[in-house]
């Protein structure tokens, strides 16, 4: 096991600085690299003061929604009447995303340190790190790190527990995760009530993504102003972000750049461009749940929250999926729809039926039995799946379908009109 590439000069390695270095994994090795200094500092600060620094830094949630982290923490009751909880979202299952895994594999103490600081800020005595069931290696590494940190006495009075998932993408949705921790099926809950009022075990709870928390020690140590200054395009997007790049690039992997970095440079310079003889066709910049960009849009996209919205998509989790001219967009969109159909928790009709029908219609088209009217049917279905359900999994299935038909319509029509050989059997 080793880390695939050397750092690129255009990267800003903050979270990824020690990726590939097994010594940084150990408590001793981490302490040598300035580990737990920020936690020591936090212990001298009032909870509200910690929250203020994070607010000031402009840090936004890296789990997908981009919600301001300090603001989220400030929603927790100031006066403590009940136990408070922190849930750490390490369920990483959004197709295209594999950054949290890397943070846990290489710098488990960075996550523990950020978790401790957040727990102090929101006055939580117990924290659960929810790790997806398939992440056996990161789980073992986190377990070891937790044991070492406990032994070294850095946890203070706080308790951190690992909770292993068991195969369900939907448990990455924060309220589904809380149900899963409670020993229930991972069905998302209707909001409100919001987690800060009624979270896990009915108590005030904050949920944060692994990457979000791993950034916190850096902010505390080097200051909000320093973090905020890392921004290439829009001042509302600050700091660095890990982009997981996969699919048709020469050097897939995690790349850490300053917010606002051009997607074009990420793909063509850092990732080594396309394979020989191939050209870029499409790119999904924020994990499979966000709209697909065509080549032109990709080449002009700046990687921050606003830059992605400007191109009609979202930064999401930072999972960048790259398709070159060899990709069959109809087949790949079907494959994504199938993912959502498989992962729907089936509570909402629009989602349960919509994801299944979307998949079926796309399969029919790929089997050479589609009708032109199917494209309108898909768009109509997608419309009914958007903004109408308990969580946004349903919307996530619609996003690649709607953007795909809009931008690659002729590929669908080629199957329907018989200009392209069927690739599936009905």
């Amino acid at each position, binding site marked *: 096991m080793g880390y695939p590439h050397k750092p690129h000069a255009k990267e800003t390695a903050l979270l990824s600085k020690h990726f590939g270095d097994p010594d940084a994994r150990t408590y001793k090795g981490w302490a040598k690299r300035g580990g737990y200094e920020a936690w020591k500092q936090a212990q001298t600060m009032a909870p509200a003061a910690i929250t203020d620094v994070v607010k000031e830094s402009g840090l936004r949630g890296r789990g997908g929604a981009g919600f301001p982290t300090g603001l989220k923490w400030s929603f927790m009751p100031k006066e403590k009447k009940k136990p408070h909880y922190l849930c750490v979202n390490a369920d990483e299952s959004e197709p295209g995303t594999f950054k949290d895994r890397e943070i846990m594999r290489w710098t488990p103490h960075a996550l523990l340190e950020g978790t401790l600081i957040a727990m102090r800020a929101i006055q939580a005595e117990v924290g659960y790190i929810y790790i997806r069931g398939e*992440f056996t290696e990161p789980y073992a590494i986190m377990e070891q790190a937790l044991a070492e940190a406990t032994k070294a006495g850095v946890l203070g009075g706080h308790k951190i527990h690992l909770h292993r998932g068991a195969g369900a993408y939907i448990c990455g949705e924060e309220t589904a995760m809380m149900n899963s921790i409670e020993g229930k099926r991972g069905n998302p809950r209707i909001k409100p009530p919001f987690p800060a009022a009624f979270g896990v075990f009915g108590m005030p709870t904050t949920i944060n993504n692994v990457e979000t928390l791993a950034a916190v020690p850096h902010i505390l140590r080097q200051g909000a102003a320093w973090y905020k200054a890392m921004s290439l395009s829009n001042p509302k997007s600050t700091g660095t972000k890990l982009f997981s790049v996969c699919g048709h690039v020469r050097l897939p992997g995690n790349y850490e750049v300053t917010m606002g970095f051009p997607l074009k440079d990420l793909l063509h310079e850092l990732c080594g461009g396309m394979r020989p003889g191939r050209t870029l066709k499409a790119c999904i910049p924020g994990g499979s749940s966000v709209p697909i960009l065509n080549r032109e849009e990709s080449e002009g996209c700046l990687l921050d929250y606003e830059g992605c919205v400007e191109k009609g998509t979202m930064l999401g989790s930072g999972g960048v999926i790259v398709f070159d001219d060899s990709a069959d967009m109809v087949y790949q969109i079907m494959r*994504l729809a199938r993912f959502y159909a498989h992962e729907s928790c089936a509570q909402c009709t629009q989602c349960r039926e919509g994801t299944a029908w979307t998949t079926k219609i796309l399969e029919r088209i790929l089997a050479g039995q589609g009708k032109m009217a199917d494209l309108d049917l898909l768009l109509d279905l997608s419309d009914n799946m958007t903004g109408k359900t308990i969580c946004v999994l349903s919307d996530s299935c619609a996003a690649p379908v709607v953007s795909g038909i809009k931008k690659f319509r002729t590929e669908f029509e080629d199957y329907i009109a018989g200009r392209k050989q069927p690739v599936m059997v009905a």
Partner: protein
Amino acid sequence: MSAVETQEYAPVFTGKTLERLQEILTRYPTKQAALLPALWLVQGERGWISDRNMVEVGEVLGLTPAYVKGVVTFYTMYHQHPVGANFVQVCTTSPCNICGAEDVVKALLAHTGAKELGATSPDGQWTVIEVECLGACGFATPVLVNDDFVESVTPERVPELVRKYK
């Protein structure tokens, strides 16, 4: 009582396994919250989770068998039937798909003798299934063999992988 019902049942939660469960219970404010970890313990001990195991888990945690079953069936990683000695999960979601995951599946089915997805090879050694994104898309194609996460598997690497676990 029928013959089936009088058959001896060897409980999972005894000795060390019971101790581990008791330690897990201290982590949560409710007993119910220990359900997922308890099911993992059962699967670790028995390889899969039978209806009778679910009854036992329910008894230990104060939950009804139907409730336990409702949870077991929600999560895809809990096996409700025995699987091959080597359980292989291959990601075929879009990012891996465009990097050749389907060829990896074909090679695995051929070399393990499992032949069909979800079926167990005649020697009881192999079960191969397709799964959705394993969270390692930059290392296409990731394959989970039992608890071992293997990255960057190609059809060419499959024979060596199969040999390793034989």
